Structure formats: structure tokens, C-alpha cells
């Protein structure tokens, strides 16, 4: 019976870890896509994730979620989907604007300049968020009402399932887009060789803008899922979560899309297992232990390749 209980416990931890990890994966995709195309670490990406969560909150209020709660009615699923779409669209615009106004003017400058710009944008957005959204933690509206299912002691909620489902669908959609569409081909070409991409007739500025928009939309989806999962959001939520997702991208091999997904899931699992079996105090620290480990042992990341020589 003791063994059975510990297996149940382990499965529970793994499920929770995978669910958390899929949120990290969604955010990590944006880091890795932007890095792949510009060799820039977009430190403002965590803030785009945060803004996405807040947009979701405000749109939910606009749909009158308070009223549904008061009446004890469940919030229509259609509205939940619309909230997701609205947050993704708003974040896409924000990401494109950040690229246009902050990064493009310094694109041809030395490497350090865009990096410092990114930190600046991150701080700016955090402080702007405190001003606009207020500095205090906000309860996240239950745009999906939680339902619990139990299978032999393992508890699964529809929210955790929705997190998996949304993350999986968006990741597959991104994969298809990158592999099969002209936009995706252009993104891959730009990430391999910017000048050669121009010679193919690709408007590389447009491709870079699209990359920011798509990565930001994915982060916004992550923001809503995070809000649902963690119940509260704050203007600082993007800092630690953004860093963890960044580590996930590095772990998988920055610039590598499947790597970001793998890294995200692994970081989520590591965090959950550490909290469950070691101590909840170490749940944040484990990510950085992993970062140091990967940088020492395999700096190109799990799925990364050592930079290919140009002929």
C-alpha cells in the first residue's frame, strides 16, 4: 500500500510538472524564435507574457465574468476562447511594436546594445504595468470553471488538461507554420542567413516583425494559462517565469524550436519534483542549477547543434 501511494504521488507530481512545463514551453518558444532570427535575447519577453495575462483579465471583466460568478453560472467557453484570442492578438501587436521601436533602431549596433535595450524595455513594461494595472496581485478570473476528476488517487483538473491541450495545439500549429508555409520558410531562411534571405526576395524586416508577433502571441497564451493555474497575477510575474522559460530555451538549445518545448517540459518537471520531494524552497533554485549544469556540460543545449561552419 505504501508503494502504491508513492507511485500515485509520483504520477501526480509528473502530471503537475508537465502542465507547468507546457506553460514554460509556450514562453520559451518566443525566446528561441527571436534568438534564432536575430541572435538577440529578448528580455522583454517575460513582460509580454505578463501583459498577455492582464489583457485576458480585462477582456474577461469586459465580458462580465463577475456577473456569471455571482449568479453561479459557468462562463461560456466561447468567451474563454475569445479571451485567449484577444490576449494573443494584443501581445502580437505589442511584440511587433517592441521590435519596431526598440530593437530595429539598434539592430546593426554591437551585440551589447540590443541586450541592454532589451533589459530597458523589460523594466519599462514592468513599471508601466504597475502604473496601468496597479502594483498589487490580482485574482485571476475563472474563465474556465475548475472541474476535478479522480483516477485512483490521481487528481486531474480540466484546467490542467486545458493547459496541455492549448499548449500542444499551439506548438503543433507553430510547427506546421514553420515547416509548411511561406512565412515559416522565410523565418527559417532569415535565421540561417539574413543576406541570403534578402536575395530570395524575402522582406526580412517583415519576417522579423512576424517572428516577434508570433512568439509574443504564444507568450500571451502562456500568460492566461499561468493565470488560470496560479490564481493570481502581478506586474512582476514575467520576471521569474520569463527567466525560467529562458533557461528552458537554453536547455533545449536556443534557436531550436523542438528544443524549447523539451526544455520547457523538463524545467516544469524538475521544478515540480524538487518542490514535491526535496523542498518547496528549492523550486525556483533548481532551474538555475540546471542552467549552470547545461552551460558547463553541453552549452549548445540538448537539441542544439554546434554552430555550423559556413562554406
Amino acid at each position: 500500500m505504501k508503494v502504491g501511494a508513492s507511485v500515485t504521488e509520483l504520477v501526480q507530481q509528473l502530471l503537475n510538472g508537465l502542465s507547468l512545463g507546457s506553460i514554460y514551453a509556450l514562453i520559451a518558444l518566443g525566446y528561441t524564435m527571436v534568438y534564432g532570427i536575430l541572435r538577440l535575447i529578448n528580455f522583454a519577453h517575460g513582460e509580454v507574457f505578463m501583459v498577455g495575462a492582464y489583457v485576458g483579465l480585462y477582456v474577461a471583466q469586459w465580458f462580465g465574468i463577475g456577473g456569471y460568478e455571482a449568479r453561479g453560472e459557468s462562463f461560456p467557453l466561447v468567451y474563454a476562447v475569445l479571451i485567449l484570442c484577444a490576449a494573443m492578438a494584443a501581445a502580437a501587436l505589442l511584440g511587433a511594436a517592441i521590435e519596431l521601436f526598440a530593437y530595429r533602431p539598434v539592430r546593426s549596433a554591437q551585440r551589447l546594445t540590443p541586450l541592454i535595450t532589451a533589459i530597458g524595455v523589460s523594466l519599462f513594461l514592468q513599471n508601466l504595468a504597475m502604473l496601468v494595472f496597479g502594483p498589487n496581485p490580482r485574482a485571476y478570473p475563472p474563465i474556465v470553471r475548475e472541474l476535478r476528476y479522480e483516477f485512483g488517487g490521481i487528481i486531474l483538473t480540466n484546467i490542467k488538461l486545458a493547459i496541455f491541450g492549448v499548449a500542444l495545439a499551439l506548438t503543433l500549429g507553430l510547427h506546421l507554420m514553420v515547416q509548411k508555409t511561406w512565412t515559416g520558410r522565410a523565418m527559417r531562411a532569415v535565421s540561417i542567413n539574413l543576406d541570403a534571405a534578402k536575395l530570395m526576395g524575402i522582406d526580412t524586416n517583415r519576417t522579423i516583425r512576424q517572428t516577434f508577433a508570433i512568439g509574443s502571441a504564444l507568450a500571451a497564451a502562456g500568460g492566461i494559462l499561468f493565470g488560470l493555474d496560479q490564481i493570481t497575477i502581478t506586474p512582476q510575474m514575467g520576471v521569474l517565469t520569463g527567466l525560467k522559460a529562458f533557461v528552458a530555451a537554453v536547455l533545449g538549445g536556443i534557436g531550436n524550436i523542438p528544443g524549447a518545448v523539451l526544455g520547457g517540459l523538463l524545467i516544469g518537471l524538475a521544478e515540480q519534483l524538487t518542490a514535491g520531494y526535496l523542498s518547496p524552497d528549492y523550486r525556483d533554485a533548481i532551474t538555475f542549477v540546471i542552467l549552470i549544469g547545461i552551460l558547463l556540460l553541453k552549452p549548445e543545449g540538448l537539441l542544439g547543434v554546434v554552430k555550423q561552419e559556413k562554406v
Partner: protein
Amino acid sequence: MSSAVAAASSTAPALEVRDLEVTYGGIRAVKGLSLEVGRGEIVTLIGANGAGKTTTLKSIVGLVPQRKGTIRIFGKDARADPTHDLVARGVALVPEGRAIFGAMTVRENLELGSFRRRDEGREARFARVIELFPRLGERLAQDGGTLSGGEQQMLAIARALMSGPELLLLDEPSLGLAPKLVRQIFDSIIEIAATGITILLVEQNTRLALETANRAYVLVTGEVVLSGLASELRDDPRIRAAYLGDDVRV
């Protein structure tokens, strides 16, 4: 023929460069260069390493923005156009070092070539480049980076042809290739020109370039020092002098 080109003056040369100046990291790499490429011609731009040949080509397609002077392509001003618009207007550059997308398959590389020309003609162009370079047809599913140097050069040329260009700029197609392959590539260039595509060829292999081209310009430290019919320049002793850095202006 694309409508954009047809709309421009039909008698204008394919390419007209006047007083081109390019400054590259504080150094004037091209100093008042002028050249002209007539429709259907093969013109070669030869000169020693560092003479400014690659810079000139990059400048024509807008990859090097700092420039003075006039660039007209089929009679239309091209100086302010971004590279991707010039590609849509029928200009293609096969860059030095080929710049193959190594992590993409040969087929994907070719498809990218037709990024701005996704019309029905795409399949016909695809069939034509495979006919021109049958070896690419055998390697369609292979990653571009796994090809040999010669095959990569073929792919780079084929990829450029996929945009349906009317003016093809080639930068050092012989670079790093075995003599037998160089011969093959140059035979293909002559074949391409025979289909009516205008060619500006930058080449270090002077003998081969002068055998292939109709006319030639000789570049020394960013300036044209000599030009004329390729057949007449072949035996001109001043060519040799130009490579040794002598002032050969007459």
C-alpha cells in the same frame, strides 16, 4: 517577361551603373565606377582580390546601402529599392561562397528561390533547373549543407534561376572548385545566357571569364581601369599588369 520590366523603356540596357561610390567601414571600396550591361550580354567584371568586385555586386542589389551614383536596371532607377523588391523585379545575385541554406533540403532551397514568383511558371522553372543540373535532381531530399562545393554552386545558381531572373549576377562561381567542375559550371552559365538571361559575372579566373563573356571591365582598387571586348582583352598584356597592381590607365 515580367510586366514591370516590359513597362520600362524597352531599349534601355539591362544594367547601367554610373559613378558608383561605396564606402565600407570608412574605406572607399568603390570609387566612381561606371559600367553597362546590354540585354542578353555576358559581361565580366575582373580584378584582383580586394578590387571591389563583390562590393559592386552587393551594391547593385542593395545589400550595401552606403552608396552614391546611379544604378538603373532595365531603365528604372534601382538605387533606393530594397533587395527583396529588386528580386521581384527580375534581378538575382548568386553570392560569393554560395550562401546555401545548409539546414534546409535542396528542394526547400529551390522553393525559396521562387519566393517572389509563386506562379504557375514555378514548376516549369523547377523542371528547367533540374534539367540544367541533373545532380540536384538526385539530391532533392538531402540537406543543402551536405552537398559538395560544386553541387552547392549548382544549387546556388539553380536557386537564383527559380526567381525567373532577367538579370543574373554571379559572384565568383569558380571559387574553390576543381577545374573539371569549373568547366561544367561555366558551360551552364553559357547555356543560361542562351535562354536570353543577361549575365554580369564577377570572376578571379580571368582566362575563363574572358572566354565566356562578350565584354569585360577590369577593376583595380575600386576603379575601372580597362574595358572592352573580351576577345580583344584576352591577349592584352595590361590585364596581367592590372593584377599586379600597376596603373594601366591609358
